């Protein structure tokens, strides 16, 4: 076994040989005394060093492992949390097959419905009789049949009707007289309250008041015929559209989840980058 004495002695001799001072014993003694510092008694290791020497396996390696795998650990934790959230959402917001989504979504669609169902009203009443009174409320359409029932719950279909009608027919033909029957008043009030169309439709309602007198029965009948033809395929379209909308809802929900996942992972990855 080589010892420090051999090393330092050899080093000193080599040094002296390099410098050409091989014949100076005092210098060699001085260098050897310097070299003797390499054999100073070592004090007992301090607490921290002693802990490291004793066994870094328990504490130090664990810390090191955690530091090396911190991104993975944090990422897994985040993904697990995301997964829990997604499953929770999936478990609670079970979209039923008949197209009815979340309660809030249903309420939203029904709230929006009167605006779209307004055009259908003259058609239904026109068929019933020449009586000019028509209710602007979709609730009245309940007497007519499934199309009227479905009317409120088909938000995507009406835009086509609305656009087509607005383009093809003058707006005043579709406008409806105000509610005449006192028994409809509460329904009307509630319908308007639910409808959430306070200001946008009020001018139209005023117009309807003004133009209702001008409107004749035949005009309304013709319109009714047109509208009834249009209204006939409406339920199927509505159901199709509803199916699509349901799918869209699912798609949009997954898209939302993806985007939420990305947006929530972005700051985390940035944070992890800072940590490295």
């Amino acid at each position, binding site marked *: *076994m*080589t*010892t*420090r004495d051999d*090393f*330092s002695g050899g*080093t*000193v001799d080599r*040094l*002296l040989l*390099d*410098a050409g*001072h091989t014949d*100076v014993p*005092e*210098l060699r*003694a*001085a*260098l050897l*005394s*310097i*070299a*003797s*510092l*390499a*054999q*100073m*008694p*070592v*004090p007992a*290791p*301090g607490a*921290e*060093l002693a802990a*490291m*020497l*004793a*066994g*870094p*396996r328990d504490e*130090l*390696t664990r810390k*090191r492992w955690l530091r090396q795998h911190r991104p993975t650990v944090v990422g897994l934790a985040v993904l697990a949390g995301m997964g829990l959230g997604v499953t929770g959402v999936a478990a609670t917001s079970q979209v039923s097959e008949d197209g009815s989504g979340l309660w809030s979504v249903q309420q939203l669609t029904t709230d929006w419905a009167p605006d779209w169902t307004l055009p259908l009203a003259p058609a239904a009443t026109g068929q019933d009789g020449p009586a000019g009174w028509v209710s602007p409320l979709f609730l009245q359409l309940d007497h007519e049949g499934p199309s009227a029932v479905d009317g409120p719950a088909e938000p995507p279909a009406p835009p086509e009707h609305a656009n087509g009608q607005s383009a093809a027919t003058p707006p005043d033909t579709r406008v409806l007289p105000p509610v005449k029957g006192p028994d409809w008043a509460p329904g009307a009030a509630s319908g308007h309250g639910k409808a959430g169309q306070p200001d946008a439709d009020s001018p139209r309602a005023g117009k309807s008041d003004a133009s209702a007198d001008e409107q004749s029965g035949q005009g309304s009948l013709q319109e009714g015929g047109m509208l009834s033809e249009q209204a006939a395929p409406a339920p199927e379209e509505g159901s199709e559209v509803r199916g699509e909308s349901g799918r869209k809802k699912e798609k949009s929900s997954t898209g939302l989840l993806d985007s939420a996942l990305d947006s929530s992972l972005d700051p985390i990855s940035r944070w992890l980058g800072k940590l490295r």
Partner: protein
Amino acid sequence: MTEALTDDALRALKGRDGELFNLVYRSYASQVLGYLTARGVEDPEATMQDVFLAVLPRIDTISGGASGLRTFLFSVAHARMVDDHRRQSRTPPKQPFEPEFDRREATSAEAAAMLLVAPGEVLELLEVLGEDQKEVLTLRIIADLTVEQVAEIMGKSAGAVKQLQRRALDRLREHSAVKDYVAP
């Protein structure tokens, strides 16, 4: 007695950190302590432990076997020494009361014996050298590094280190000759 750390021993203990750390500490603690003492670090023992606390956790990342480890170890020790010197130059000099340096008493036989092994005399010897000369000599002799390793640690060329080493030896030779002449 200090064991010499070999490449084989390093390789054999790879993965067993506890034993490896112990071997490295046993192999180099004395040299690091001697180097720091020779360079006039204020608290060489604490600084030595700091050096090992800094080096041991990074031992897996060191390449070059035992030689690379030695170079890295004394690079850290050198940096700590430079830091300590800077700190000492900034702070006003302290004058702690050291009973063993209180010369007003007659030294006992025990104290005289202790002085022989104590580094005081050697430090006095090194005082005649310039800073760079001191650094080269301590790294060469105490840390047992090659000229190239010393050059790497000090950030100088090998030629400059050899020059410093030669001048340091010349200086020491003059001093030891005078001392020998004066000494009874």
